[in-house]
């Protein structure tokens, strides 16, 4: 069984601070996807990383896929209150197979 562990589980920071959340597994995945979910809504896809060592930037968000494709990180620079939400990582295998999700990191950015 493939599992993904996310840390920290909860994070509360002041606006303007930087933060990193982690997603780790003992299994190799073909891809890692990051989603953000707000209360009452479904997860919204932020990024997909597929190559070991890959780094992708989305404005103030930087995503990295580990060299061995077993782990990933999300770094947010100068957090804003609009970044508040549940951040989920999900591992994918080849083709259309279902995703394996972590439990998420609940981020709260305080003004």
């Amino acid at each position, binding site marked *: 069984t493939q599992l993904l562990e996310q840390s920290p589980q909860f994070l509360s920071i002041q606006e303007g601070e930087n933060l990193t959340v982690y997603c780790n597994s003992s299994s190799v995945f*073909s891809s890692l996807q990051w989603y953000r979910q707000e209360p*009452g809504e*479904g997860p919204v896809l932020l990024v997909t990383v597929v190559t070991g060592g890959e780094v992708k930037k989305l404005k103030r968000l930087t995503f990295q896929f580990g060299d061995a494709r077993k782990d990933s990180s999300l770094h947010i620079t100068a957090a804003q209150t609009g970044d508040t939400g549940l951040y989920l990582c999900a591992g994918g295998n080849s083709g259309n197979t*279902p995703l394996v999700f972590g439990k998420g990191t609940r981020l709260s950015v305080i003004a």
Partner: protein
Amino acid sequence: GAGVSQTPSNKVTEKGKYVELRCDPISGHTALYWYRQSLGQGPEFLIYFQGTGAADDSGLPNDRFFAVRPEGSVSTLKIQRTERGDSAVYLCASSPSGSRGTYEQYFGPGTRLTVT
């Protein structure tokens, strides 16, 4: 274009009743997934369709759960003899198919099921 839609958005039912949850995927997406998300957890896989057929139903918790996708588009998740432990948000996602190796999944807003 339109995203994945799910109806109803909320469903309250009594223990023992039957419920149906509907998912309309993004037009043209051949793969459709059902996940269940309990409070404080990430989504957990239930069943996945490729076209009209269930390609993988290994996540269905027991035989009270069943899903169909008769025309390869809309899907219905059916739960018989509901139990309080079935209370959760049921999420549907769809994904395109093609020759690429990895396909991104796009989620609907979910149906919040509460069994009293």
